[in-house]
């Protein structure tokens, strides 16, 4: 007791003292011009990253990013910031690994302290089938050049001692896949880093600007109707995540998307206790401890379609049960805040990226729970796709017509991990 009692923490360095500050200037608030070469609809992480790479990789800067609310205020502001690339299928591994490599240099690229922390991700297995699926994914990852290991329960406990690996819980931990290079980053910082670079390159980031329609000429879109006036454009990229269907309906284009609430939550600030990221699909929980010390957790996707940015509380309760089951020390951590995002989910749990029936409109949607971790990768590939009018090889497999041919990239059953 004496050690604890010896003091108020005044003697120690305050835990929040070392967090980096934001730059003195982030972005302008420009009036929309009447015409742009490229209009990106959606000022979230994907839209901003696309803008950044359009400028950086292709020198295309006559670009507007249109955001109906505040920049990066949708899923970018609401996710649990997990970054990993240990996906099962070659196509998924390629795009997410491309993203992870970019994450590894992003702080320098953006000149922004995005707090990217490669603390590793454990995906727990709780049944024989989980084990098979996990080994399958690890082996596929290794052959694809993605770092991955299969760990037994003892090794799990070594990496993350607070995981309950005892055999007497309802679904004992039978092992885990481990991706050492995976981790977390600070979501706002990432988005703002992209936004700042795009703005500095001369790209207009236009907030409170909701797209209300499109003007078309045959197979081309000629302009965008917005709450801030009509804007003519050469090419259009749709990066609107959960709201993509609303835009596609305006264009009369169908895509197999369903928008669902996805909730997340944080605890209060706690002394470091959780050194890595743990995800479990069977005992549904995924959790990390952010830099200031809060536990950040995600819950399951709510069952029904919803655009409300909130979900049902029984989902949170179940999440808490799973958390305490796997991490008994969390019992008296406190739920501080819950919130919800809108995830656009596809039938095969893989994104839809590429062309649309309009020859100058490019689509990027359907990332479900995987959007944040893909941010730099998809921004890069979308920019490339727009610049060359040809789907980048990493996104080519994710075309809309895979649902017609049957060439799905089914990450559901096989990967056994979402988020």
């Amino acid at each position, binding site marked *: 007791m004496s050690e604890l009692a010896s003091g108020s923490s005044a003697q120690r360095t305050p835990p929040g003292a070392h967090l980096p500050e*934001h730059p*003195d200037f982030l972005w302008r608030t420009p009036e929309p011009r009447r015409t742009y070469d490229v209009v990106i609809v959606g000022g979230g992480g994907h839209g901003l990253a696309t803008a950044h790479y359009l400028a950086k990789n292709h020198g295309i800067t006559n670009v507007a990013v249109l955001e109906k609310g505040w920049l990066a205020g949708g899923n970018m502001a609401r996710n649990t910031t997990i970054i990993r690339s240990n996906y099962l299928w070659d196509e998924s591994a390629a795009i997410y690994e491309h993203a992870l490599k970019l994450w590894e240099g992003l702080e320098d690229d953006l000149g922004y302290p995005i707090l990217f922390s490669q603390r590793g991700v454990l995906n727990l297995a709780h049944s024989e089938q989980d084990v098979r699926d996990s080994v399958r994914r690890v082996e596929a990852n290794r*052959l694809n050049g993605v770092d991955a290991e299969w760990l037994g329960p003892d090794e799990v406990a070594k990496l993350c001692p607070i995981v309950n690996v005892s055999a007497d819980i309802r*679904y004992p931990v039978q092992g885990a896949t481990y991706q050492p290079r995976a981790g977390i980053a600070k979501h706002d910082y990432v988005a703002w880093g992209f936004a700042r670079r795009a703005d500095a390159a001369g790209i207009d980031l236009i907030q409170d600007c909701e797209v209300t329609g499109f003007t078309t000429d045959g197979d081309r879109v000629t302009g965008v109707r917005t709450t801030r006036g009509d804007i003519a454009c050469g090419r259009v990229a749709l990066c609107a995540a959960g709201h993509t269907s609303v835009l596609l309906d305006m264009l009369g284009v169908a895509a197999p998307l369903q928008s669902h609430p996805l909730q997340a939550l944080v605890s*209060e600030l706690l002394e470091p206790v959780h050194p890595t990221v743990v995800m479990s699909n069977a005992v549904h929980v995924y959790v990390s401890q952010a830099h200031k010390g809060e536990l950040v957790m995600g819950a399951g996707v709510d069952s029904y379609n919803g655009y409300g940015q909130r979900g049902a*509380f029984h989902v949170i309760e179940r999440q808490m*049960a799973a958390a305490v089951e796997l991490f008994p020390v969390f*019992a*008296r951590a406190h739920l501080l805040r819950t919130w919800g995002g809108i995830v656009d989910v596809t*039938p095969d749990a893989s994104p839809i990226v590429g062309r649309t029936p309009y020859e100058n409109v490019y689509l990027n949607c359907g990332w479900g729970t995987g959007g944040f971790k893909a941010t730099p990768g998809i921004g890069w590939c979308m920019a490339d796709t727009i610049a060359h009018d040809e789907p980048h090889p990493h996104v080519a497999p994710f075309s809309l017509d895979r649902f017609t041919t049957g060439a799905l990239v089914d990450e559901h059953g096989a990967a056994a991990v979402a988020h």
Partner: protein
Amino acid sequence: MRVDGYGRIDRSRTLGFTFDGRSYTGHPGDTLASALLANGVHRIGSSVTLGRPRGISAAWSEDATGLVQVEEPFPEPMLLATTVELVDGLVARGLGGQGRLAEVADTARYDRMHHHVDTLVVGAGPAGLLAARAAARRGERVALLDDRPEPGGSLTGTERIDGRPSREFVADVVAELATHPEVAHLQRTTAFGRYDDGFVLALQHRTDHLGADAPRTLSRQRVHRIRAGRTVIATGAHERPIVFADNDRPGILLAASARDLLHRYGVLAGREVVVFTGDDAAYAAAVDLADAGAAVTVVEARPQAPAHWAGAAADRGIPVLTGSLVAGTEGAPGDGRVSAAVVTGADGARTVLGCDLLAVSGGWNPTAHLFSHVRGTLAYDPALGAFRPGEDLDGVAVVGAANGTLDLAGCLREGASGERPPSADGEPERTPGAIVWRVEGPHDRQFVDVQRDATVADIARAVGAGMRSAEHVKRYTTIGTAHDQGKTSGVLASAITAELLGVPIEDLGTTTFRPPYTPVAFAALAGRERGQLFDPVRTTALHAWHVGAGAVFEDVGQWKRPRYYPRPGEDMEAAVLRECAAVRDGVGILDGSTLGKIDVQGRDAAVLLDRVYTNMMSNLAVGRVRYGVMCGPDGMVIDDGTVLRLAEDRFTVITTTGGAAKILDWLEEWVQTEWPDLRVHLASVTEQWAVFPVVGPRSRHVISRLFADLDVSNDAFGFMCWRDTELDGVPVRVARISFSGELAYEVNVNAWYAPAVWERLLAAGEKHGITPYGTETMHVLRAEKGYPIIGQDTDGTVTPHDLGMAWAVSKKKSDFIGKRSFSRAENTDPLRKQLVGLLPTDARTKIPEGSQVVEFCPDGALPAPPVPMLGHVTSSYRSAALGRPFALALVKGGRQRVGDVVHVPVGDALVPAEITSSVLVDPEGNRRDG
């Protein structure tokens, strides 16, 4: 310090507690905060970024600063000292922004209770009490919740209601409520979230305040899940601080909180008091503190003090400096407690007023959290200088201060809900307040969010950086994201941002309130769903026998299934090899009761099955059994199993264990939503029937011995037939179904008789060495025959053709679910993955399941990534029959590649393996008839 004649604590008894390693005493009824202040402890902790001293800034859950770690009786992080009720032996310490989790599991119990009420009233202040009483008098079922230990809300006891002291009024209402059997009145219960359709969640603290006396049987906390026809939000208001330089010191309190500490706990939080206000309510604090012995000065932002209060102040010799502002403070060395207020007078002159308590009131923020949780919009009210409920919501009433009604008479009137309201005797009329959010001064020492150390300078930086929305400023500065979630800082942040942006606050708006209102322990939300209660456990009728036989169990969905039955000294491999050999050479018995069983009845039963199975079921003869595969519309296999035709209009559909519930739902969905014209009914009979496959060349002996009436000859009882018989009057259905390739009889019996029939089978098989076997052996035996397990050898991307089951896909039927997908481009790709056998060429290595298959690497090393993959190993076992390990794998174009040798990377090695047919044992099928 404690003053006599004040407070509702029990000063006849003393409690000992420890804070930051020092021992103190307090009294029952104290909070940790009141006891510390009574002991002269003002510094509680330090701030998270700057390490500045932090004290108590408010008397209840809106406190932004007084965070403590409780260490005993059990560690709990980040609690507000103001809400921790004092108990004997409490050990706590102040925090510097982070709490500490216990290193051991919490053994306290947490649970839930459900309520369905006509009216839910949140808040037992004057408005809430009356609202609850009115509802009770109407005969409604009522729940009244209040987060404090005692009812009464902000009533201090000095008010008079209907001619009597306000505490007596409270006691009267509470007593009346207690006479209504349909009223649930819960104190220490915080409504923390409101959801759709009148659903409110509340957390009740049930034992912490009882200390060591708490009964072990009582749950520590309980989550009340309340479904209310009508919700009355009577949650009061939070007093609003004013931002000035160095406004973060210990000893700077909200004025009403200083008054609350006096009346509730008998604690005078300072002797030399400066009250800084632009609002009438703070005068009550000034007067009461002066009456309790403090020397008080009022700094009034308005040019004139309200007449009533000016008189009351004058009567007590309280100086009132009108038109004046507190612009800054000075602090004492050591604990940093405020030592002086720097006042700017109406004439601009600067005065330094020594003080040890600076009581501040910038007006009131309605506590509208619950209102806005379900997107109730808040509107800016310029008279309040704050946001309040801005629309009418169905089923929701907001009354009293939560609605922006700040006078007691108004609260009583709104609470009375149409009944005659009690009178608020002698209450002075409120006069308009001055809306003061911030006093000009050095931005970097003006704290907006004292817990996050976020200042006006931070907001200015955010604005300078281009931030234009309240949400961006919040994120840039972190204001409002701390433990208190901006209860007192939110409006200030909006106001100051608006000021710096030069826009009206109503245009900027405020950030969103989200549940929970106050933090809730994870364990409380988990409730009882932990450990073995995390998910239901399903066991078969024979579970006790399996346990007694020493079975090692496997979780299959919610089921516990015996995986193998080790004998002394056996590991799994040895046990499974023994069990496999016993089945192939003699006879084994399995508890297959977990298989899903669906009773399909009705005139159109056969029509339904023809539509959902890939093969034909309608031409199955009564008395016969047929294997079938089901696909989704996408043509991918979702389940398989056998179908028994019991009658023209009746079938038993057997599903996989994992697919039982899913397939029943699947069939119901089609029948109800797509084909309501079909006359067919479905019922699960999984639990009703126990199933014991008796398997092996000697199985016929066992069956014929036990069921003497049954002609078990191949001619009379052929493969894929079923027959009914009985055993001592118990009906038994026997089916010749084989999931091993061996002669096999599946014995089906009412689960009630399962243990007896099982024992009789064992007895009948004893001389044949009948061997119980588990799921692992079952898996090996079926794999040796190339029978897939749906969900193990398939993953939602596999068609019947991929499994080599084109024979089970009808070409005659014009349609069935999934058929159309088989003709898509992707389905005709010759490089689709197909189920094949895989034999490690060394005949020794058991390849781990999940391993990937790659082309043979002639130089013995993998090429650089990415290495193209051919497929993966879905099943892998040691085979007693083959005397070597083998595997099943899904391999691209696999059936065309039989005989090819491929590589399987295992660890750092490359294991060569030959692609074979998926059927490795008895490919001619000679064994199934015995």
